[in-house]
């Protein structure tokens, strides 16, 4: 019996990898995901107060430790503030240039607001389930944002739910640009750490500084495109290091969106056609 189960598990793994997205196993998964979605939806709403309470206790505990660090940070930030104020005017112009004005970062899309109804227990799967699906117009490869910035893209849909692969998932990569006039690279995750991303393919001579904002570049070469349009905030540069033997800089980003505490997100649906992005 044990051998049968082990073999069955191995068969499932290889079958999942070899089958197409519309294969029978995928259909079974979608069916089970649909069947569980009402339960998840109800439980997510019903248990929210309890979750908030536990997280509040946990955050309070953490905040005590962070207090002294933050005091040091405040002193540093005061010095930076004077410098930053002079750049505010310039910043406004740049925000407009990259489409990051107050009208919204997903101009041209129909925004569908959805609640996060499920999360995986492991850092290896940076995906979330949301309570909106193909019935609401959500399609595969639609970009997903929250109030802070880019969250991820839709990778699977059922009539009532959708699976969103976060930008911190090990299979994610998004074309990114450093503001105000920095170069373009690829923002990808560091597996196991949802609060850090890496910005790759930035030439080591490019001047990149801590605190610079990184937004989606909306890369396209005519036949292939990034799923996300240009101008969606991704995060800010936290650390840069340059290895002597390396061609590119090692840039660490802190994503703006808090991937561990996503609650409400917006999906950009029916957006402008992007070459090579199937929906």
């Amino acid at each position, binding site marked *: 019996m044990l051998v049968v189960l082990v073999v069955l598990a191995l068969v499932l793994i290889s*079958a999942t990898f070899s089958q197409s997205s519309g294969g029978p196993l995928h259909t079974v998964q979608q069916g089970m995901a649909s069947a569980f979605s009402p339960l998840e939806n109800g439980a997510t709403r019903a248990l929210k107060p309890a979750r908030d309470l536990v997280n509040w206790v946990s955050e309070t505990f953490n905040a005590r430790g962070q207090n002294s660090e933050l005091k040091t940070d405040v002193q540093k930030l005061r010095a930076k503030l004077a410098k930053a104020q002079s750049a505010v005017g310039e910043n406004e112009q740049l925000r407009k240039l990259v489409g990051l004005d107050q009208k919204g970062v997903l101009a041209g899309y129909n925004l569908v607001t959805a609640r996060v109804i499920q999360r995986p227990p492991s850092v290896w799967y940076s995906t979330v389930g949301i309570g909106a699906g193909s019935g609401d117009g959500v399609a595969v490869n639609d970009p997903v944002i929250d109030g802070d910035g880019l969250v991820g893209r839709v990778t699977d849909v059922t009539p009532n739910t959708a699976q969103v692969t976060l930008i911190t998932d090990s299979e994610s990569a998004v074309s990114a640009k450093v503001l105000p006039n920095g170069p373009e690279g690829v923002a990808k995750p560091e*597996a196991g750490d949802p609060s850090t991303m890496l910005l790759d393919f930035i030439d080591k001579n490019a001047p990149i500084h801590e605190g610079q904002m990184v937004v989606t570049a909306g890369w396209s070469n005519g036949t292939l495109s990034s799923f996300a349009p240009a101008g969606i905030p991704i995060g800010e540069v936290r650390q840069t290091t340059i290895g002597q033997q390396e061609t590119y800089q090692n840039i660490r980003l802190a994503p703006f969106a808090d991937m*561990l505490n996503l609650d409400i997100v917006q999906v950009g649906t029916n957006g402008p056609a992007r070459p090579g992005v199937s929906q």
Partner: protein
Amino acid sequence: MIVTWRIGLRIALIMIVAIVLQVSFFSYLTLFGTTPDIIPLVAVSLGLLGGAMTGAVCGFILGFILDSVLLATLGVSSLMLLAVGYLAGRYREGTEISNTLIPPIMIGALTIAASAGFAAMQLMLGIDVPVSLLVLREIFVQGLLAFVLAIPFYPLIRRILRPAIVDDVVAGRRMRTPIRSGTQRSRRRLSRRRSPRMRRATGVS
């Protein structure tokens, strides 16, 4: 464990509630930088209560449902959870659990094993991005949280499955039957009252 269809139903209910609680509640919590995972806890608990085969089958089913609900790679969680469920069951079959701390310790240790195995599987299946050392912290803290969560959850699962657990049934019978110097006739009457299944399970005729 005597698995009748009623007990099977209870086990199925435990597994479904565990999955829903995990994806809708526990996965939202951040304790010591990680999220508690009660799925290995349930698989190990069922193994400790029901034996190796019950643990393996329940672990496999738990993994299959979890991977299906999360639309993740099918089979990965099943493989890990059936392994820890089986190991817990083997331990229970070979050793008498006399200390109440043993189940939480087993659950914590096997959760660490499941998380480490899961990480190894993911690495074997191919990760194109750098892997943070925080993964090690995640594995260890998840084991620690599983140990803490096992303190209320293991007795709860045991209580739900109590009618099927041979030790508990025998202990319950002993408690309900006062120790007295009964006659040969009354002992025979008591023996007749025991169900045939109970006689088979306990070896008392």
